[in-house]
């Protein structure tokens, strides 16, 4: 940190006095803009929300007395031949992780002030996110219409399977949908020069990216705990 530290007496703190001293010296604890710091703190809080959902799901999965359906059989799709387990989920996961890649590129292009490329990369991130939500809708409809699973009833076994599934993937899907809207708003602002008028600072692309990567990371945990367990 280059901000001058104002001491009541010059140079009284030796460099050896540790991390706490360093962090507490300056006007700012983290050398980042306010919005970015706030997004990080929000994501920590949101992590606790998803953790509670997942812990709740694991807890009811243990406590229920009815058998738990086997996810690799439930989430299998057949393309003419034998059903392939988890194929749709694999594609969805691939798409979401790809969208993290385009997002990272968008952040880079944002810092290079290449507004056009930033715009298109953010729009493609949003498109990948939207297709993820679309496939999730397909998966939901398959489960609801073909298998007869509802939050309150499950012909394949424990009712908690349907309740947890719809609740957790639904909450995550809402996060993705919100992210798509967020991405599009920022992308169009980048395109129409909104940030040029505000000093040409494209930190906001990275802040949006933080949220988007977080949503992807959460999906990895949902994938591991719900589909692979």
């Amino acid at each position, binding site marked *: 940190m280059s901000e001058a530290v*104002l001491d*009541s007496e010059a140079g009284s703190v030796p460099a050896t006095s540790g991390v706490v001293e360093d962090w507490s010296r300056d006007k*700012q604890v*983290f050398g980042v803009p*306010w919005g970015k710091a706030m997004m990080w703190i929000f994501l920590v809080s949101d992590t606790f929300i998803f953790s509670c959902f997942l812990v709740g799901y694991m807890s009811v999965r243990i406590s229920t007395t009815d058998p738990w359906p086997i996810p690799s059989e439930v989430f299998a799709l057949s393309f003419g031949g034998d059903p392939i387990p988890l194929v749709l989920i694999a594609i969805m996961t691939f798409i979401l992780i790809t969208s993290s890649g385009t997002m990272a590129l968008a952040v880079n292009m944002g810092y290079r002030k290449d507004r056009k490329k930033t715009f298109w990369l953010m729009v493609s991130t949003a498109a990948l996110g939207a297709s993820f939500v679309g496939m999730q809708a397909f998966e939901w409809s398959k489960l609801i219409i073909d298998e007869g699973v509802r939050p309150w009833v499950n012909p394949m076994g424990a009712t908690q399977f349907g309740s947890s599934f719809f609740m957790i993937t639904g909450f995550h899907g809402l996060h993705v949908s919100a992210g798509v809207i967020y991405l599009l708003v920022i992308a169009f602002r980048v395109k129409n020069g909104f940030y040029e008028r505000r000093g040409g600072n494209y930190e906001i692309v990275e802040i949006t990216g933080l949220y988007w990567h977080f949503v992807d990371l959460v999906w990895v945990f949902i994938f591991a705990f719900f589909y692979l367990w």
Partner: protein
Amino acid sequence: MSYAAIADRDHEREHHEPQTFITKYIWSQDHKVIAIQYGITAIFVGLIALGLSVMMRLQLGFPNEFAFINPENYYQFITMHGMIMVIYLLTALFLGGFGNYLIPLMCGSRDMVFPYMNMLSYWVYLLSVIVLLISFFVPGGSTGAGWTLYPPQAILPGTPGKDLGIVLMLGSLALFIVAFTMGGLNYVTTVLQARCKGMTLMRLPLSVWGIFIATILGLLAFPALLVSAVMMLFDKLLGTSFFMPAISSMGIDPGYTGGSPILFQHLFWFFGHPEVYIVALPAFGLVSDLLSTHARKNIFGYRMMVWAIIAIGGLSFIVWAHHMYVSGMNPYFGFFFATTTLIIAVPTAIKVYNWVLTLWQGNIHLRVPMLFAIGFIFTFIHGGLTGLFLGNVTIDMPLSDTYFVVAHFHMVMGVSPIMVVFGAIYHWWPKISGKMYNETLGKWHFWMTFLGTYAIYLPMHYLGFQGVPRRYYAMGNTEFLPESAQALNASITMAALLVAVAQILFFINIIWSLVKGPKSDPNPWDATTLEWQTPDHPPKHGNWGDKLPVVYRWAYDYSVPGYKDDFIPQNVPPDEAPAGREHGVKH
């Protein structure tokens, strides 16, 4: 640093003075106005909760005398009293009220980092309060499940308000959490990133430290409440079975199967125990500043006070199941949670000793804020010690769900924080309004409240030992209770009525002060912290006029030898005043 320079410039550019009445006082983005909005709303619902407790006491003191209180109402009164007091009054007042008012002023900032979001925070909070109040008037009334809202009973027939009441309650909580998150992100980011020059973290007044750590606790604990509220709403509205086991309710199978009621208790108390400290830590911080200022002494052991706040905050996340010793969970859990619970007593005791040692040989001015601060030390030690009893599994078993528990938590997180709330309002009232309050009325208010609350809660410990269960509408013919228990209940009710009436003195004082009170000095208590050094009194939008303050010393330079005054404000440069005893080290 380029980031800071840009951030500072942006921030100042956005601070143009609002022109119309509506942008100045209603849709205001000024942290001070938002703080007052939060404060007024919180105190308003708090008065409703006070009224509910009076109704409960009337029934308990004089059973069957009041025909308008039936068992259903009684449970609704209990539930709404607890919920409003803990969340809508104390959490909102400490963080939304004092947090909003004091953080930017004490850190030397112009406002919160995102004022627009700060404004939204208040309006969503107001919405949550409105939803809460609507639940009183829906068919079936508000929920009567107890403030802990335990399933299965919370959503099954037999509990008042099991339909719309509980749904609105959970919805209101979810809104409150959204509001709190928007405000809380602001408070944390402001403390971390927007302090003025020279204001290092270890120079922050303890008020800011307490509110800061409490806000972090809130951001990490409220998610558990949000999740349990969502899951219970699904159980109620969609018929899922997260918390609902296979159960027969009044001879009918409601169709639930295989859920876990204990899961709700774990989730609820993972929120619920940090919530105790969300209320307590701001009180700890504020009272430290009150004691130091009015004893004209630096706070004893500032560094330890900060670390104790952090340690208590951290530990508060691993003690939650001490609320669940009788829930039927694995007894080995009890061993773990009793140990962590008792460990919390160590940093808490450090704080109490340091408060007392701050008073030791101080030049104590027994003004109204100081009286409330010292009253807090009494009630907090009292409630804290009974907490040690209840933290032990074997002692908790017989005392659980008796009036001993009621006495304990009212002393430690009811009366104690309220003492600080009053002390802090009296202390900062001159800054908020620019007027002085009436000292005599304030002293009457303190003594009636302080002695009155002891008259209420001390006998409750005894009732608890006798085995009087909490949450009962009436005792009926309970053989193990002597008749004198009823006499005691009647006397508690009389004391409670007295305390409730005494609060009128507070409001008379506020109104008197606003209408006829003398103008106050900009710094009536000769305090060192930045909020008393503002160029305008009361501070205007943007707080600091043209130039942000620069801080050269910690917040507790009182009675420094060799200086003309017995206090040196934080923004006095070292060439104008001697270096004080920053962190207890004599330079």
